[in-house]
């Protein structure tokens, strides 16, 4: 999503969110949000703007910069449905890309499960493989690896030589 639609969305978001919450808008349209404003932004996007479908939650390990990043891809499903039914969508369809950066030492991001339950297992996966904690998640435990496993494999400094368990 780019151009006029993105500019309009950015202006509306800046008005709705507290000062400084929207840190940066990148060249391809991705919006970087402060972690403590994530829930406000999510609520605004879902209720006022109609982005009701969270497609993807990804964790990225920027080890050189000492940060973790969580990337959210949002689409407007009910507006997309209007296209399939042959009507005019009257609004942007997405994707809206939200990025949240947290320091690597103590990564904690508020969980968006109260807003989009589709993040229920995807956040568990990011926690399991990257080690980012999601505050407010109803059931944050490992999903792929067994519970006694200690490291987080997708981190860039994970070394697979020490094999754990049986």
């Amino acid at each position, binding site marked *: 999503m780019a151009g006029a639609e993105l500019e309009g969305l950015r202006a509306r978001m800046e008005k709705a969110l507290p000062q400084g919450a929207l840190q940066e808008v990148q060249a391809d349209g991705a919006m970087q949000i402060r972690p403590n404003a994530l829930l406000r932004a999510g609520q605004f996007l879902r209720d006022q703007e109609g982005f009701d479908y969270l497609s993807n939650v*990804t964790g990225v*390990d920027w080890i050189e910069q000492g940060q973790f990043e969580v990337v959210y*891809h949002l689409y407007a499903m009910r507006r*997309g449905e209007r296209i399939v039914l042959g009507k005019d969508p009257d609004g942007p369809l997405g994707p809206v890309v939200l990025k949240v950066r947290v320091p690597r030492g103590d990564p904690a991001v508020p969980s968006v499960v109260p807003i989009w339950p589709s993040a229920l297992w995807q956040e568990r996966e990011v926690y399991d493989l990257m080690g980012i904690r999601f505050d407010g998640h109803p059931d944050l435990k490992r999903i792929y690896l067994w519970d006694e496993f200690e490291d987080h494999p*997708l981190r860039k400094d994970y070394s697979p030589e020490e094999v754990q368990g049986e």
Partner: protein
Amino acid sequence: MSEEAAVHVPMEIEDLGTEPITLNVGPQHPSTHGVFRMKLQLQGETIVSLEPILGYLHRCQEKLAEGRNYLQSIPYTDRLDYVCSMTNNHPYVMAVEKLAGIEVPRRAECIRVVMDELTRLLNHALFVGFLLNDMGAWLTPVQYALREREKILDLFEMASGSRMMCNYMRFGGVAHDLPEEFMPLLTKVVEEFPAFVDEYERMLTTNEVLLARCKNVGILPPDRAVAYGVTGPVLRASTVAYDVRKVERYSLYGELDFYVPVGTIGDVYDRYLVRVYEMRQSVRILEQVMKLLAETQPGDIQSKVPKTVKPPAGDAYARIESPKGELGFYLVSDGSEKPYRWRVRAPSFVNLTPLEEMCRGHKVADVIVIFGSIDVTMAEVDR
């Protein structure tokens, strides 16, 4: 998550001191489409809660891909959802093409759409067969489906070299051109498939046993489906008509004319019917693409791409409508030949999230049918 659930689960039966039991539907089970474990809390035969446990097929493909260059990861994408390997390649090559700005020639787009729709036929035929298998119609519908699948698998073997792990799409097009025997056999498949679907429906759709087991079982209301991020035939059976092919119009789908089947209630029967009707629509799409393919020149199947692709730094997300739902790849590149982050948005993984909500209040035997109707491949869930 709604306390005011439609079905009242009795916690105690009068005059009998009952208590709930925990039943483990273990990882090795013939009907779990892979290795999947569920811990069921039962009161008699009724389900109180269901806890799914995943990870038995976890190979951490996302970490493996960070150690290989972009071309070497294409065989790994085949092994994500092993039933639909052509559609697994497609969003990955689309994401790299987005990152690196590579164009795709028209003949290659036509071939990609042909392979996508053939995969949809494959998957839906197999799904119907195995749903009936889970219900107890032991292998008769499976054999009918597999007989039609054999023709399509022969097509794949002719074009790419392998029936299952096709490894056929490349950045900027496809790997090899179609051999001469491909078009006659494709014409034969397209002519014979509608008759097969009609016969399949005659055998199954009004069958009393199927109705008794599928009607009003595992209903997923549309607002819960949208909230859980469910996509694909499960979403369309719950009356939400969202199809990535019509919304994104990627590849050739903007020029093609087809309907999107939508259900009325959102139970297992609707999901079965939506997939049967999608098979008919796929045949319609194939007829149109075959005409478009005949207009292109043979030979122009891949644009000029360097041997080792090094996309510029940035990120891209590409998604398609795979037979199971929305399959997406999110790639982050740092300018080198190996990806920095390689993420698969697997449809089976997200579609499995509302399993507990769909199953609460039903009997144990319904769990297998509901699970089969979501059409999951554990290799995609666990990656």
